[in-house]
């Protein structure tokens, strides 16, 4: 081989920051080819994807509306990924958070109390955490792979939502549509900037970013998570409990995803519908990696992925591009990122010496 991959003595810090940017550039270059093959002018398409959605203040605020659930879920997932706990069921935890959180309003719709929304948020967090507790229990007690159990529970949660919304939760005055009644004012997320849909959930997401940052950088549990993830044996010798970390990271991710779900139903959606999320829980996996599993990185990655959702919608309306382009785009970003990550720990060398001797 002409190129040789050599392990670096120490990982490259600059590459940690550079690879997401390289990955994005490669994604944009590849999507130019993709747009060309779909018969769309690539410049026009890229404009619709990345610039047009930010034209007005309203659209700019929409960026935060879409980024909120992504950031919440991704912060939770990233903490688990740091510890090699592969929870990929954020979508299910989000759904359960929405169900459990909104159950308060559904069963007590007349409640007119300032405590209703806070209680719903707490219930949402508990619902998501309870759903994540199932893989945690099976993993710690029975050694069952959390990747598969958490993913299976996504389907179960979505079916449960469908069951409720086609049955007991259907709005009696809703012409038989599978929708709950719309939330009352005291169950709604307060709007941050009037005239937009930007809501209190965005503040919760920011709070999660800072909270997770402090937790990972300054607390014992954060340290334990990092040690267990990078050197499980060392963690064992230090007396850190792997089981405790599995429980903690799953419950943490479940709670944040649950809050994300609740803030969707009592924020932009304003009622319980059969489809709460266009796959935020899965896209959050990409957000977590693109943000280098770091809270601040995740914040920016969340905004970027939110932009691809908005861009996908704009491109669909203005250019007739299929919505699925967004998914391809998001998948490509992660692909290129993982490919570029080789540069963090390895370097490429031209294999000249061997050529000379042969």
């Amino acid at each position: 081989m002409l190129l040789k991959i050599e392990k670096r003595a120490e990982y490259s810090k600059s590459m940690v920051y550079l690879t997401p940017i390289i990955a994005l550039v490669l994604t944009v270059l590849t999507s130019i080819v993709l747009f060309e093959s779909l018969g769309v002018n690539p410049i026009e398409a890229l404009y619709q994807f990345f610039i047009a959605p930010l034209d007005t203040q309203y659209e700019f605020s929409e960026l935060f509306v879409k980024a909120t659930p992504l950031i919440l879920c991704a912060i939770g997932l990233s903490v688990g990924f740091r510890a090699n706990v592969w929870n990929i069921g954020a979508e299910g935890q989000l759904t359960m958070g929405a169900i459990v959180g909104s159950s308060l309003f559904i069963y007590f719709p007349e409640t007119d109390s300032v405590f209703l929304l806070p209680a719903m948020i707490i219930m949402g967090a508990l619902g998501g955490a309870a759903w994540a507790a199932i893989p945690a229990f099976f993993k710690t007690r029975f050694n069952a792979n959390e990747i598969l159990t958490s993913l299976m529970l996504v389907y179960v949660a979505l079916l449960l939502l469908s069951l409720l919304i086609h049955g007991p939760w259907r709005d009696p005055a809703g012409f038989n549509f599978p929708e709950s009644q719309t939330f009352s004012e005291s169950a709604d997320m307060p709007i941050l900037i009037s005239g937009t849909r930007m809501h209190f959930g965005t503040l919760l997401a920011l709070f999660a970013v800072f909270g997770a940052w402090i937790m990972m950088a300054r607390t014992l549990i954060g340290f334990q998570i990092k040690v267990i993830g990078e050197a499980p044996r060392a963690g064992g010798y230090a007396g850190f409990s792997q089981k405790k970390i599995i429980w903690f990271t799953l419950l943490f991710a479940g709670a944040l995803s649950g809050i994300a779900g609740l803030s969707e139903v009592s924020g932009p959606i304003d009622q319980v519908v059969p489809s709460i999320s266009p796959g935020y829980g899965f896209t959050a996996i990409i957000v977590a990696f693109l943000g280098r599993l770091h809270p601040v990185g995740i914040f920016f990655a969340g905004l970027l992925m939110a932009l691809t959702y908005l861009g996908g919608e704009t491109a669909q309306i203005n250019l007739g591009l299929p919505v699925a382009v967004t998914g391809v785009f998001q998948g490509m970003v992660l692909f290129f990122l993982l490919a570029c990550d080789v540069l963090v720990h390895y370097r490429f060398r031209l294999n000249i010496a061997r050529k000379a001797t042969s």
Partner: protein
Amino acid sequence: MSGFDWIVPVILTVITAATPLVFAGIGELVTEKSGVLNLGVEGMMLVGAVSGFITALVTGNYFLAVCAAAFAGAVMAFLFGVLTLSLMANQVATGLALTLFGVGLSALMGQEFVGEPISALNKLNIAGLSDLPFIGPILFAQDALVYLSFAMVAIVSWFLYKTKAGLVLRAVGDSHDAAHSIGYPVIAIRYLAVMFGGAMSGIGGAYLSLAYTPMWAENMTAGRGWIALALIVFATWKPGLVLVGAYMFGGITILQLHAQAAGLNVPSQVLSMLPYLATIIVLVLISKDESRIRKHAPACIGKIFHPAA
């Protein structure tokens, strides 16, 4: 006999529900035996499903459709190989990426074809035998892919345990450093194993869009790729048990469909949960015995190989 008329149709539908799982499971088994964990089965199945469907719709040639599906799955798997084998990316993360990418890509490829009907893959008609009562329709009147799925299980079983190449593949999966030092091309062998897995997943996906429900719908695999991954744990990495497991899950899927059709007084959503819940329960029961898993799982699974020299 008339009281048992339902048995034959039920068995027939169980076979169609199980076949995609057999393909995806047996392919991923070979991949994992070589020491690679590819979580992208769901994505490869979807891309296989849509490629097979489009080929069948355009050419009308089902043989070509199956080949296209296998090819598409193998290409997806090749991408996975480039990342994890050549560029040494984390296998779990890359597998997830492959699934996310496959979901998007298949939706994009198939968006003009949603809802277009095609005729289901032909059932073979083996002269004389297909008309036998009871066993005729079950054993001698399946489509070619069903027979192929059984053949693949037998071939993989034979290959892994009765051939030298199979032994080498297992050695690579159990100790890549040892295999490398004896001089086996670890990376090349893993590429082949991964691409075989992709091709099988592709065919498994195509079975859904060509035979099970002859049409294309976004995300039509509905988690079967993940169930196939769970099957391998259930089967403790043994080909024969993958077959048994696939038919068990096929049985559960069909049971719930029939229960829904029979108007059982249980909400359809609860019944639809059954395959997923069963997967979780089976995983828990099998994984409980940690030493058994450790004994059968390829020792190098998920580990990155980078030759020191």
